[in-house]
Every structure is written in C-alpha cells, then in structure tokens.
C-alpha cells in the first residue's frame, strides 16, 4: 500500500510542477500577482509530496518489500540497515528520486529564503526550477519508475554490490546531487535574469551563496568518492580520470569558475554576460553528469541501443534545457548593460584569467572523456583515453592557474600596480624558488613534476598567508593603528569571505603538496610471504605474522596480521582483509591503512599461493608507503571549510542592500 502512496505522491508532485512551471511564468509576463504567488505554494507542496514518495520507497527498502522490483534488484534482507537505506539511491531509479527530492528541497528553500526577491523575479526563478523538475518527474514516471511491482514476489533480493556497502560511498551520491542540484538554482537565476534582461550586483549576491553551497557539496561528494576509491579498491589510487569521475569533476571546475566570476559581477558590475553563460554551462554539466553516468552512455555508446526509451528521453531533455537556455542567452545577452572597465593587470583581470584556464581545462577533460565514444561512433576503433592524456593536458594548464591564485588576492580592483605587488610577493617568490631548487637537489632522480609541484604548493601557501597577514596588518602593532587591541579588532572585523578564501586557497596548496609527494615518492613492495617474514618499506619494518579466518555480518574474511615497527619501535598492527560476501557472491579486498601526518602505510593481503610452485602457508602481500597522502584529505577539508565560512559572510545574507531601507527590512533571507 505504501508503495502505491509513494507512486501517487510522485504523480501529484509532477502535477504541481506542471502548474508551477506554467502559471507563475505567465503571471510574470502579465504582471498578475495572483498567478505569480502560485509558485510559493506549489514549491512547498512539491517538497511535501516528494518527501512522502521518497519515504515510501525508503520504507520498502527497510522492511525488505520484495514485491517492488527496485528493492529486489538492489537489496537483501540480510543487509545492515545503513546499506538498506543507502541502497535506495544506489541504483538508477532511486537516485533519480533522490535528485527530485533535493530539487524540491532547494525549490522550497528559494521560496522561504527568497522573501526579499522581487515578486516577478521569484516567480520566474521558481517557474524555471519547476520546468527542470517536470522533465525529471516525467523521466522517472515514464521510464524509470522505482515503485514498479514484481509478480510473483521473490523470497529474497539480489543484494547490493558489496563494494558499495561502505559509509564513504553511502553518502557520496547524496552530496554530489546536492551539488548538481544546487547549480540548478544558479541556472534558474540566470535564465530568469535573461528573461528580465537585467543582471546587476544584487543578482550576483543572490546567486553566489547558492553556487558556493553547491560547490561545497560537490567538493565533499568528490572527496568522499575519491577517499572510497583509495581505501576500497585495494591499490591505493585515489583518482583514475575515469569517465564517471570526470562527469562529477567537470561541474566542479565550472562551478569554481562561476564562483569567481560572480565576485566580479558583485563587486565591479562587470563580466555579467559571461557569468550568466557560466551558470548555464555549470548546470548543463550537472545534467550531463547525472544522466550520462546513470544511463551508462559514457562507458558505451551502445547503451542507447539497449535502452532506447531512456536514451532518447535524455537526449531530448538535454537538448531542450541546454539548447533552450543557450538560445535565450543568444537572444537576450546583448541587452545586458556592459559593466565597468579594468586593466589586464588587476583583480578582475586575474579572475578572467582564472575563468579562462578553468573553462579551457574543463574542455580538455570533456574532450578526453568523450573522445573514445566519438571515435567508436565514427571509425569503430576501440580506444581508451587514460590518465596520461589527462596528466599531459590538465596539469600543465593548472600551473599558470596556481601561480595566478597566489598573485590575484594581492591585486587591487580596476588597475593594479606591478611594482607594489612585486614588492609584497618578492620574498614569497624567492622562498618558493628555493623550495623547488631544494626539491630538485634531493630528488635528482625523481620526476620533474615533483619539483614543479613542491614549488607551486609552497608558493600558493605562502602567498595566501602573506595576503592574509597583510590584510590583518598584524605587523603594525604601533600605537596609531591601535596596538594589540587594534590588531584583535581587525581579526574580528575581517570579512568572513577573506577567511573563506584563505582557507580554500590554503587548502588547495596543501592538496597540491599531498598530491605531489604521494605520487612522486611512493614506495611499493609486492611479495610472497610466510608467517615470520619481514619486509622493509621506506624505513618501516612490516612483520607478517599470519592469517586467520573471521566472520562479518554478511561476509566471511581472511584477516592478515602485520606488525609495523620503525627502528624497533612499534608503530601499528595492520589487519588487511580479503572478504567474500554472500549476496551477491563477491570477493573484495579491504586494505589496512595507518595514517600519520607524514604519510600513510597501506597494506593489502592477496590470495594464498596454492597454484604453481609456491604452495603452502604463503601469501601475496602488497605494501605501500604514501608520503603526505593525508594532506590530500586535509586540503579538501580546508577547501570545504573555506566555502562554509564564506557562506556565513554578512554580505551574502543581506540579499538586496537596496531594500534594506524599505519596508521589508534587512532581516529576511537568512
């Protein structure tokens, strides 16, 4: 019964979306208040019905209702509760339901927090949101219904892929979707602004927090996925440049560009047309990411052939959304007033440079991701474009970007003074060159990229800190600037956005250092051992003491025991496992990882050597030392923190400064 309620609620939500996508937009054209206010009620109603629908599906998973096809295909009664719940979105149909849930959530949030938006503008934003939602509801109801029943009712489900039964991955899709859907708000604001033919700093203040929130969620989502790959796939890689990863990385790159160009709109009323275009492109990549990953097109062109209904729907939907919004852009962007002028060497100029590099690097990633599909369709050749392509194109483009990241915060708006900036960054430049030279000396046989990586990481970190302390003026504690008290006051009054930028840019620097060190100076040992054997990895002694069988809730495992010591001092007992799950029957490798500030120790135990010459109690083990790898996660966490701190900035909360004097007051929009 609850299953039918869920299905029915979804249909009601669809009906509300149709209303919300038509009446308010029409009302905005006719300046009809009644029609425009329909949007608010409809947005809240949609949220209500989608929540009911989602809870019904979740209930079916929790009680293991195997009369529902989706539950049969993706769940199992013996599965731990957490993974029964995460199983809801661990499949195509359920993940789309999660998508519309988040879309409805954000729609309602725009309604509640957007009280100070002009009525016609709000009606248009919510109308556009509803049009996107309508497409998704139709797609779910027509081609991917999660509430489909199955008869006869099977006794047991097929289970969820054990690799996906993991806390890191349980929350990876929801965060990615929060990011993707967050960008839909920027999209709706952009389309509404195009319809009204007006983009100004106030518009940027409305759009920035949504973009920032979406960026934070995307960052968390990508980092969680990467972390999962690192400890779950068993060989310590954390980024593979695989099409599915690229699909989430491209929206992140564009969202990063959008975040920065919106600052120029907000502060200088410039780059307006470009920012609107970025908002459209960012969401287009989100759609591409959602659909192409889920439909399997990225791994094979033939997925269209195996499931033409979904494929054709997706193509039409993408054409309508992307084509439609770009057409609107072509028609209306000319009406946007050109903004303030600036010299090439200025804060604006640096942000344009940032946008240019981010867009171009997104294009190279897109090309590498789609090239195999393209070649297959045209010549029939099967090729794969692997990490070497991406490392050879993406990384060189990031080098000037990171250099610019260090300089940009020191530049003044409109026109910056080259001499003054050089004066501030002289010491930092010299120090980074020294760091690179020291690396080159110590690393004479290592990869060249290591030298560049260390130099850039140190440069970005120091240049960011230099800017931060210069803004605080901590060095001038003299009486005329208020002494220590004055300094403390400056710390308190420093805008949150400055804190946010410092954290985010500093996090990027730490991430660069972690990536560089862990990929350049990793030590790897692969060997066959018997109990009592000792292996030496990067100064650590790994003593293999044996393997014991253990039982988990839905698997059995062989657990290896490895004692790690350094110079005779115990460091850690590592217990990697090789698991065999029951439902579905599958083997997985659970790496044992010991994280230290200086790096990770990573151990995997393979199979018993029963084949070939090496028989008996002998096991294959693979050990790694990955220097500075935890810095990667720390860097990502700092970037997220930076985004969150920026979100608390007062400027972003006071949505429309022009209205602060009006009747509405400035207290709305929290």
């Amino acid at each position, binding site marked *: 019964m609850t299953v039918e309620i869920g299905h029915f609620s979804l249909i009601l939500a669809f009906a509300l979306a149709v209303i919300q996508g038509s009446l308010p937009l029409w009302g905005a054209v006719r300046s009809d208040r009644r029609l425009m206010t329909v949007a608010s009620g409809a947005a809240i109603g949609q949220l209500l019905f989608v929540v009911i629908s989602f809870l019904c599906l979740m209930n079916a998973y929790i009680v293991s209702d195997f009369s529902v096809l989706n539950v049969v295909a*993706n769940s199992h009664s013996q599965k731990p509760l957490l993974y029964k719940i995460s199983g809801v979105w661990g*499949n*195509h149909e359920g993940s789309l339901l999660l998508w519309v849930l988040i879309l409805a959530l954000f729609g309602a949030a725009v309604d509640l927090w957007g009280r100070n938006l002009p009525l016609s503008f709000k009606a248009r934003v919510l109308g556009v949101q509803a049009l996107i939602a309508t497409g998704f509801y139709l797609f779910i109801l027509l081609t991917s219904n999660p509430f489909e029943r199955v008869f006869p009712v099977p006794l047991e489900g097929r289970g969820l*892929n054990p*690799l*996906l039964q993991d806390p890191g991955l349980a929350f*990876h*899709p929801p965060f990615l979707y929060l990011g993707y859907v967050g960008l839909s708000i920027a999209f709706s604001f952009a389309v509404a602004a195009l319809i009204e033919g007006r983009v100004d700093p106030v518009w940027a203040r409305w759009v920035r927090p949504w973009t920032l929130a979406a960026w934070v969620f995307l960052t968390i989502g990508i980092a969680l*996925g990467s972390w*999962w*790959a690192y400890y779950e*796939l*068993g*060989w310590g*890689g954390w980024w*593979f440049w*695989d099409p*599915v*990863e690229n699909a989430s990385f491209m929206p992140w790159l564009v969202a990063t560009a959008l975040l920065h160009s919106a600052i120029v709109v907000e502060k200088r009323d410039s780059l307006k047309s470009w920012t609107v275009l970025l908002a459209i492109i960012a969401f287009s990549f989100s759609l591409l990411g959602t659909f192409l990953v*889920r439909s*399997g097109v990225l*791994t*094979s062109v033939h997925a269209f052939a*195996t*499931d033409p209904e*979904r494929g054709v729907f997706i193509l039409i939907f993408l054409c309508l959304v992307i084509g439609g919004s770009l057409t609107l852009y072509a028609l209306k962007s000319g009406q946007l007033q050109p903004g303030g*002028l600036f010299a*090439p060497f200025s804060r604006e100029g640096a942000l*344009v*440079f940032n946008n*240019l590099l981010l867009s*171009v690097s997104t*294009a*190279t990633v897109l090309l*590498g991701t789609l090239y195999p599909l393209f070649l297959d369709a045209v010549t029939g050749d*099967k*090729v*794969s*474009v*692997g990490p070497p*392509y*991406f490392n*050879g*194109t993406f990384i*060189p*483009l990031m080098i000037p970007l990171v250099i610019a990241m260090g300089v940009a915060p020191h530049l003044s708006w409109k026109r910056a003074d080259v001499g003054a900036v050089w004066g501030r960054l002289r010491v930092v430049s010299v120090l980074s060159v020294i760091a690179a030279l020291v690396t080159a000396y110590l690393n004479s046989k290592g990869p060249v990229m290591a030298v560049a990586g260390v130099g850039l990481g140190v440069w970005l970190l120091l240049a960011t800190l230099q800017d931060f302390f210069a803004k605080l003026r901590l060095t001038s504690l003299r009486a005329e600037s208020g002494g220590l008290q004055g300094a403390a006051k400056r710390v308190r009054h420093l805008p949150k956005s400055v804190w946010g930028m410092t954290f985010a840019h500093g996090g990027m620097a730490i991430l660069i250092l972690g990536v560089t060190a862990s990929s350049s100076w990793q030590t790897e040992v*692969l060997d*066959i051992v018997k109990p009592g054997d000792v292996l030496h990895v990067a100064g650590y002694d790994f003593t293999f003491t044996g393997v014991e069988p253990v039982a988990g809730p839905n698997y059995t495992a062989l657990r290896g025991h490895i004692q790690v010591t350094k110079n005779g001092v115990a460091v850690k007992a590592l217990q990697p496992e*090789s698991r065999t799950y029951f439902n*579905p029957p*599958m*083997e997985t490798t659970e790496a044992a990882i010991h994280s230290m500030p200086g790096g990770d120790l990573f151990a*995997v135990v393979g*199979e018993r*050597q029963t*084949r*070939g*010459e*090496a028989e008996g109690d002998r096991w294959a083990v*693979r050990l790694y030392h990955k220097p500075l790898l935890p810095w990667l996660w720390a860097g990502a966490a700092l970037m997220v923190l930076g985004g969150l701190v920026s979100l608390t900035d007062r400027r972003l909360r006071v949505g429309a400064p022009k209205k602060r004097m009006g009747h509405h007051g400035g207290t709305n929009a929290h």
Partner: protein
Amino acid sequence: MSLSSVSARKRRRLYMVVGGLAVLGVAVALVLTALEENIVFFYGPSEVKEKQLPMGQRFRLGGLVEDGSYKMLPDGITHAFAITDGAEAVQVYYKGLLPDLFREGQGVVTEGTLRPDEVFMATEVLAKHDENYMPKEVAEALKKAGTWQGDGHGVSGSGDTPEKGEGEAVFKGQ
C-alpha cells in the same frame, strides 16, 4: 558613452580575445600531443594475430581467460594465462596481484605490450567487480570472432550500473 571609453572597451575586448586565443592555442597543442601519444587501442586475440602490431606499442588485450591455461611461473609472482576469443589465443604474463574476480573462463581486459615471441606482457589487469559482468570490449571481440554466446551472458544493463568507477578496479603490476 564617451569616445575614449568606447575605444578602451574595444581595447579591453582585444586583450581578452588575444589572451583567450593564446590559452586556447596552448590547450589545443597539449591535447593534440597527448592524444597522439596516449591513446590506447583495444584488440581481441584474433586482431592481434592478424595485424602486424609494432613491438613495444601499448594496447589493451581482452577476451576470456582460457580454461586450463592459468599457471604461476616459478618465480612465485608472475601469473601466466592465455586470453582467447574462441578462435585465437594469446599468451599473457602478468606480475602482480590479480583482481578478486579473476577466473578461468571469465572476461578480462589487460593492458601492456607484445614481446617479439608474441607473449603479451601485461602491466595492468582490469576486472569489473561483478560476478556476471562482461566487459563490453570483450563482448565485441567475441562477436567479431564469431564465438559470442548471446546477451544472456550479461553486459550489465543501465539499471544496475553502479555510480562511481565502481567496480572497475585497475590492478597495476610491476
């Protein structure tokens, strides 16, 4: 708008266009070299036998692990097996841990280079972590060789393709 402002605007636009083209040019150059050097082609055993592939060229070889072909070489760490498409078979050496789902009779994709004695030295073994998954390249290689058993074999459908690179684990050898 004054005349000087118009020309300033034009000059700014010129800077932007020139800068944009410069970055784009660099990117195109990078992409072209990277594509030329780093594309890895996929071949089935029959194609390997019939094409005269240059020695040392990296490519991907995929097919089924031939029944009864697996053995461990005396060094205790190099795996030897043959990859077949039913018509032809290629001997493969791989030094490293095999993925969990490596089995005789299962589909597999390997990446490496061909030795002069026609042994394929694999440096990576890719396996989907799904007991009934058939890599799509393998399915097509089998179709080409005329030994495909039909779709019941299970190229995994769109519905249950998991979200992340899931599943596909790359095992790097030494």
